[in-house]
């Protein structure tokens, strides 16, 4: 299937107080096919939010794109003019922000906020617009769409606010949805509900979904492919089932090992969880070594000398680690 989004060799840096630029993304390559769910696994500081913003060329003014392209339907979004970008944002590619409590206008009714998105993109008569807004609200709220739509954001719960963000995102029928930590501030039961909604919408609307999260467990059984982002680079990329059940990169492996398993009667609760020691590397400090090397449990001599290149382990699975080549 032909990819609808292609990201090539993306390099993004921010200026820092010390003078040396902070490398937020250093060489990110991937593509997205129609109707595919791609999970981007990364912790804070891995560059995931920068990546999400970059996909729609929404970086803050200090962000410098030194190299790379983001191609959607034949257009490089990083080179497109503001007018073209405005047409695409919210209508062809939608971004769902991280914090629902601050991503909505505080004094505008929920329905109006969804309506604004429709109005910005469709120059049609009021009737069609109303229909689209109603359809979006109905898809996320079901029968309660009428009463909830008349409320203000502060009158809704966290999960309901997230649903409003989703309604705004799907209102104009985009082909790609980017969700940046959509459930980070929600409790597990609400989280499960949101993911069920995502699954439903993805199936019924044929959306391609890029789901960005720090929790690998959320991607299991949900994403088709997983991209593991570490310190601005891709550690591993492949089919979700493979990456999660048989992770190759030491970081992915350590991450999955640290998840609390289903307790068995034999398991002692005094045993400590396996963990990844240390912290993320300082992205402003220039280094020639593999970014994960200081914390890697299986590091070798060569890991200190240069960064590993991506090695293909199969037709769709690649890893950036010297243990597998590079």
């Amino acid at each position: 299937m032909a990819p609808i989004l292609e990201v090539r060799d993306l390099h993004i840096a921010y200026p820092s107080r010390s003078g040396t630029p902070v490398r937020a993304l250093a060489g990110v390559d991937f593509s997205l096919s129609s109707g595919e769910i791609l999970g981007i696994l990364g912790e804070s500081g891995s560059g995931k939010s920068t990546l999400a913003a970059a996909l729609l060329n929404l970086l803050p003014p200090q962000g410098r794109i030194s190299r790379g392209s983001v191609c959607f339907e034949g257009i490089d979004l990083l080179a497109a003019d503001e007018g073209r970008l405005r047409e695409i944002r919210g209508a062809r590619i939608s971004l769902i922000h991280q914090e629902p409590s601050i991503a909505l206008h505080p004094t505008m009714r929920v329905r109006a906020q969804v309506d604004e998105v429709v109005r910005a993109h469709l120059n049609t008569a009021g009737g069609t617009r109303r229909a689209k807004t109603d359809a979006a609200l109905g898809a996320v709220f079901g029968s309660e769409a009428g009463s909830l739509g008349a409320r203000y954001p502060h009158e809704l719960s966290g999960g309901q606010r997230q649903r409003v963000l989703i309604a705004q995102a799907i209102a104009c029928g985009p082909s790609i949805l980017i969700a940046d930590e959509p459930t980070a501030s929600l409790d597990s039961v609400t989280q499960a509900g949101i993911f069920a909604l995502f699954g439903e919408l993805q199936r019924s609307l044929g959306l391609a979904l890029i789901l960005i999260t720090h929790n690998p467990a959320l991607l299991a059984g949900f994403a088709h492919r997983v991209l593991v982002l570490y310190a601005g680079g891709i550690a591993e990329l492949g089919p979700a089932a493979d990456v999660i059940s048989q992770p190759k990169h030491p970081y992915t492996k350590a991450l999955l090992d640290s998840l609390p398993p289903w307790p068995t009667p034999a398991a002692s609760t005094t045993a400590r969880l396996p963990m990844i020691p240390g912290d993320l590397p300082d992205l402003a400090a220039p280094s020639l070594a593999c970014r994960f090397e200081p914390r890697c449990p299986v590091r070798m001599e060569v890991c200190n000398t240069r960064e590993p290149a991506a090695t293909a382990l199969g037709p769709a699975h690649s890893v950036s680690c010297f243990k597998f080549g590079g």
Partner: protein
Amino acid sequence: MISGADRAMEPLLTVESLVKRYTPRGFGGGRGGVTALDGVSFSIAEGSTLAIAGASGSGKSTLALCLACLERPASGQIRLAGRELTTLTETQLRAVRPQMQLVFQDPSSSLNPRLTAFEIVTEPFAAQSRFSASERAARARALFERAGLSFQSATRTAAEFSGGQRQRLAIARALALEPRVLILDEALSGLDASVQAQVANLLLDLQEASRLTFVFITHDLAMASRMADRIAVLDRGRIAETGPMDEVLRQPAHASTRALIAATPQWKAELRQQADT
């Protein structure tokens, strides 16, 4: 963690029939209102951990605030080492507060971003005004070490630390007055998955070393299962069920427990198979 068999002595913390209501303020008095806690009871032995699990709206945060004596319950009892807390005056409470400390979910809002790490950790000393400057510095150094932070970072402001480090700071601050009980209100929920294990291990180490008692309040059952051997499930202000962790998880009696288990992503079928191999 001490198993049930060793709990022959009186439990350190006992809560009995705790009730807390919130009524809206306003002209004309409060009609309506919410009963956040509707008769909550449990007990915890010294040196052990009780996990209190519930979805949002179950009353967890209210319970944390009541336990820390930051909110007064409408009725019920909280006994710490035999001493009843709900009827104490503010002055009497001040003597008791050091024994029960609270660690919040979001370190970026519970820590003053303008203070340096040193100031944050020694803040409780200033309130108690017992120690000289050199004593404070020595104690701060010890706290940093216990929390796994480098003392060289003591002059940096809270904003310059990562999320995991900030939570360590919050824990260090909570330990400053040598409490017997730590109330962890979603203390790990705001951290990245990769950092949760680190901080969880730190807490377990601290518990072993200092015989701390933990009240681990969370919606994340997976984390709860690694921190505690006993669990109480909170549903709409009431305890739905309580018991040893693996018993409750393997044979949940209440619908809300089942819902929480089903909603835990770490225990999805795809991941469980992997763990069993």
